[in-house]
């Protein structure tokens, strides 16, 4: 049987190959390469699934207990989100894959470069021995994945909108229209936000049960609230004041940078109660 480390190495290369295909597809505009890219993405996602399953068998528990394991989960969710777009919009949005699969590749690359002690299979520390772990982590990461996809689409939006304004034929012609990208950007944030909110609430319930307080202003808690405020601001701007396009695209990028800090930055720079990941 393959180990999860071996599988995640393979996964890294599959996502890299898929990302390269997407970039060639963008440059050469050949449908065949696009199909190959999508096929590689599907293979990658299957390997990603296998990695999670093997890790579960190896550890004998849900594989979400450290930074390395959650990165595998995040790339799995992000790629699944992209596959859903691809199936729903039948090839029209294939270029979104170029950004999303690149993100998945970067996520796996970052996970592979983590020091071994962040990757090793360790038994769960007492604080994590709870069924709340699965609920809290899954909801939070579905939220992160939504924000990650919105971030990718936000970048595409800015590129496309600039090209549309110039009005000349360009590299970005095959991108979906900026209206569609704007709409999708909103939709993924609208998925991410309730899930991250639920993740925070579940975390609070768990903290109350494990530590005797639902909120301690721990850096992880505080930063999750900051992220929440950013996206809450986004919704007020968009739904009440009618912000569209560039403004909301920038918002989705800033919001995701805050998510990256919440996820990685806090773990390394501001460790607190939530020091495991």
């Amino acid at each position, binding site marked *: 049987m393959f180990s999860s480390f071996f599988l995640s190495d393979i996964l890294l290369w599959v996502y890299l190959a898929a990302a390269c295909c997407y970039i060639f597809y963008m440059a050469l505009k050949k449908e065949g390469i696009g199909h190959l890219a999508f096929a590689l993405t599907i293979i990658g996602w299957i390997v990603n699934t296998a990695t999670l399953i093997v890790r579960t068998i190896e550890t004998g528990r849900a594989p979400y207990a450290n930074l390395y394991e959650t990165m595998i989960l995040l790339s799995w969710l992000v790629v699944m989100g992209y596959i859903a777009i691809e199936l729903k919009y039948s090839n029209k949005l294939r270029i979104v894959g170029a950004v999303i699969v690149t993100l998945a590749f970067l996520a796996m690359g970052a996970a592979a470069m983590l020091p071994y002690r962040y990757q090793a299979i360790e038994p769960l520390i007492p604080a994590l021995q709870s069924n709340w772990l699965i609920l809290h982590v899954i909801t939070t990461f579905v939220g992160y994945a939504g924000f990650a996809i919105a971030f990718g689409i936000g970048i595409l939006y800015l590129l496309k909108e600039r090209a549309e304004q110039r009005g000349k034929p360009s590299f970005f012609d095959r991108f979906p229209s900026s209206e569609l990208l704007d709409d999708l950007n909103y939709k993924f944030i609208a998925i991410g936000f*309730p899930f991250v909110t639920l993740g925070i609430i579940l975390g609070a319930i768990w903290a109350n049960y494990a*530590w005797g307080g*639902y909120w301690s202003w721990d850096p992880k808690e505080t930063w999750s609230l900051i992220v929440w405020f950013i996206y809450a601001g986004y919704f007020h701007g968009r739904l009440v004041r009618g912000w569209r396009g560039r403004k909301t695209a920038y918002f989705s990028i800033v919001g995701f940078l805050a998510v990256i800090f919440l996820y990685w930055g806090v773990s390394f720079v501001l460790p607190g109660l939530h020091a495991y990941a």
Partner: protein
Amino acid sequence: METVVQTEAESKPRGVFQKVYDFLSSVKLAVVVFFLLAVGSISGTIIEQGLDPQEYIRQYGEKWYYWINLLSFPNVYHSWWFTLLLALLAINLAVCLSKRLPTIWRAYYVADCDFTHNLVQNFKNSTVIKFQGGTEEAKQKTLSILKGHQYKLWMENGPKGISIFAAKGRIGRLGSTLTHISIFIILSGTVISSAMGYRTFYPVYEGTPLYIPQGDFYLNLDKFWIDYNDKGGIKDYFSKLSIIDKEKTVMTKTIQVNDPLQYKGIWFYQSSYGMAWDRIDLALIRITDKKSGKVVTEEVLDFRKAKEIKGADLQLTVSNFVSHFAYDPKTKQVYAQSPEHENPAIQIEIVEGGQLIATPWLFYDPKLQGMFPIDKSKYDFVLADYRAPQYSGLQMAKDPGVNLVWVGSALLMTGLFISFFIFHRRLWIRIEPSEKSAIIYLGGLANKDAFGFEKEMKGILESF
């Protein structure tokens, strides 16, 4: 003249009131408060919270400390300005809700069938269909198509034509209202938590019952133990606790992290464990004769229990212990600088020849031993070893606001789900007779998901 003056006098204060009202209910204020709360929260993760003033002075200097202290940066999340921002958020929420509620209610509740085809054609999404058949047929066809799309229908037959109003997902309108009410509930829960709740940490020792004044009962730690895994790492740790109320054991439970005990609304959580910093079980004292330099005896002493040393005319008592020796010159007190066993020391009372001659501190660290000989005694004393008891670190908490927070959280999730995934769509249809056929005017509005609505409209048209 008089009436003019009166209205002016009346409208002037109303103008100010209106301005304040508009400001307090504005979305701009909400976004600005979000921004300030985010920045304030970030400051609390950059500036370390809850340190001693000296530590801030050391890190930032005297001058900066003045500002840090003035703006409560050592305790950002409970500072006056952070509380003020949260209060502003709550006021903003309440005022905004009161302002928008009538509009939301109207959009939710009112079915409007009093309109002409002009109104229908004004919508962004609108079309005109030439229907081959009479108005009655056109009406039946329209109704069946819209029913197929799960629309709720209202109808009015006029002399010049038929008006149909169709709506679905109108509960989506209430999503944002529910969300905002829920935030208000969560905030009130946190206010109750901080006003009436408490959290205390207790190091609890086996066999020493702890009185809990808030509940008028005793908590006894029957046993504390640690389970190790194969690699020798800590797998889990447990405290077997008993509640003694009115001299009767009313409850016994083994708690661990993620499995607390609750009695009379007071919760006890397994939080940590460690070695005592203020007491020991046993101390091993080596007694040497000053003249001969020979070891007279090695004695095991219990904590705070006098012991006669045979053949030496001595009585010794270990009266105090600190795990990390420190001396405060102001109060002339010895205290433990930290719970770590960095520099353990005991204080002993030496009674020699029937008289208390000294109460020196003895250090465990060999480098510090024998530094302070006791002049009045024939002997030298050395702390050769000691054994400190293990405590179980228990967090005690009572939080009357927590249930309100959970209710608010449940409503928040419901509100978010409703407002993001249920879209309010409204259609206005006017059917008017034309020679031998009918003209159907169809127009609509969606509060969200314009793309999805356009798609649905296309589908409806195709069905015609």
